[in-house]
């Protein structure tokens, strides 16, 4: 049963990854190219100012063309399959344990929670940044801060889900969910307030490119989580209705959902 869920999760992740690649290719890549154009222009100006000193050309290990096609596809698809698999495992634990709403609603809520915890809240503090934004000398600090924020966000979301379950029997589902959501937001607001900020946008970097890059990044993540949440739920419900996936639990689940 878990095996079937895991395989389903990874297949849905693959589907999501292909959609996200298409979206990223159309809306994200132009912004990456513009940012690299800015970076190159800055480097040229610097080279002119420092006449006589040879420009340190970075060796191009992978061409831009490969980066923007095979590289983007690989990165996005591997990422999506991995999250599809993780999603399925969390679903296997959470379904009928943390929430009992039927596979479609549980899957959709789980994906919404994942989107908020894994992407939305961390990037509100440490937003996605195009090339040329970010000092190479601070990559260690920035990576550490980003993953600390990510870990705290995911941890707080899990804690909130458990809190909701505890409260639900006493004060009802709606109030329990509101209190849990409030607790998550309060914890993450405190974390964002305590953690140091990062501002390494170079002078003169076009604001429009930064904005559009971040909107494209947001869109890619929204597309991935929506696809995983909705498709996984639909397929799981269909499998459950046919009784194929839950024979050990007595077969038929109510289909009135």
């Amino acid at each position, binding site marked *: 049963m878990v095996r079937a869920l895991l395989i389903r999760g990874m297949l849905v992740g693959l589907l999501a990854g292909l959609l996200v690649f298409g979206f990223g290719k159309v809306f994200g890549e132009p912004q*990456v190219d513009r940012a690299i154009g800015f970076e190159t222009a800055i480097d040229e100006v610097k080279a002119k100012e420092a006449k006589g000193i040879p420009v340190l050309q970075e060796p191009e290990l992978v061409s831009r063309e490969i980066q923007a096609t095979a*590289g983007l596809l690989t990165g996005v698809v591997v990422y999506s399959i991995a999250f599809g698999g993780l999603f399925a495992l969390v679903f296997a634990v959470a379904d009928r344990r943390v929430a009992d709403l039927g596979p479609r609603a549980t899957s959709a809520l789980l994906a919404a929670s994942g989107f908020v915890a894994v992407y939305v809240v961390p990037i509100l503090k440490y937003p996605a940044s195009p090339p040329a934004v970010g000092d190479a000398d601070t990559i260690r600090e920035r990576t550490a801060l980003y993953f600390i924020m990510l870990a705290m966000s995911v941890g707080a979301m899990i804690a909130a889900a458990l809190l909701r379950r505890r409260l639900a029997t006493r004060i009802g589902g709606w109030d329990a969910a509101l209190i849990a959501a409030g607790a998550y937001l309060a914890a993450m607001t405190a974390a964002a307030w305590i953690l140091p900020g990062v501002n390494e946008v170079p002078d003169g970097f076009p604001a429009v490119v930064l904005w559009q890059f971040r909107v494209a990044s947001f869109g890619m*993540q929204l597309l991935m989580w929506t696809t995983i949440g909705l498709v996984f739920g639909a397929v799981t419900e269909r499998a459950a209705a046919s009784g194929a996936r839950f024979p050990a639990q007595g077969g038929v689940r109510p289909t009135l959902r």
Partner: protein
Amino acid sequence: MSDTIFLPTVSAQPIPVRQVLPWAIFSVVAVLAIYFVGAEEGATSLFHGMYVHEFLHDGRHLLGFPCH
């Protein structure tokens, strides 16, 4: 009460945790995959060189990871 009908409003039991645990190893694989997409040859390196970083460059930026 001849018209009493059975309404299955209570769902089946959750999947027992001991059935999920053996598959948890896949979460390690998944996290490792996400690490490779997001951070390898950036802040930390398992391999020498920059090939992984350069190949996955665009996805890393667009997925929201700090890249360089």
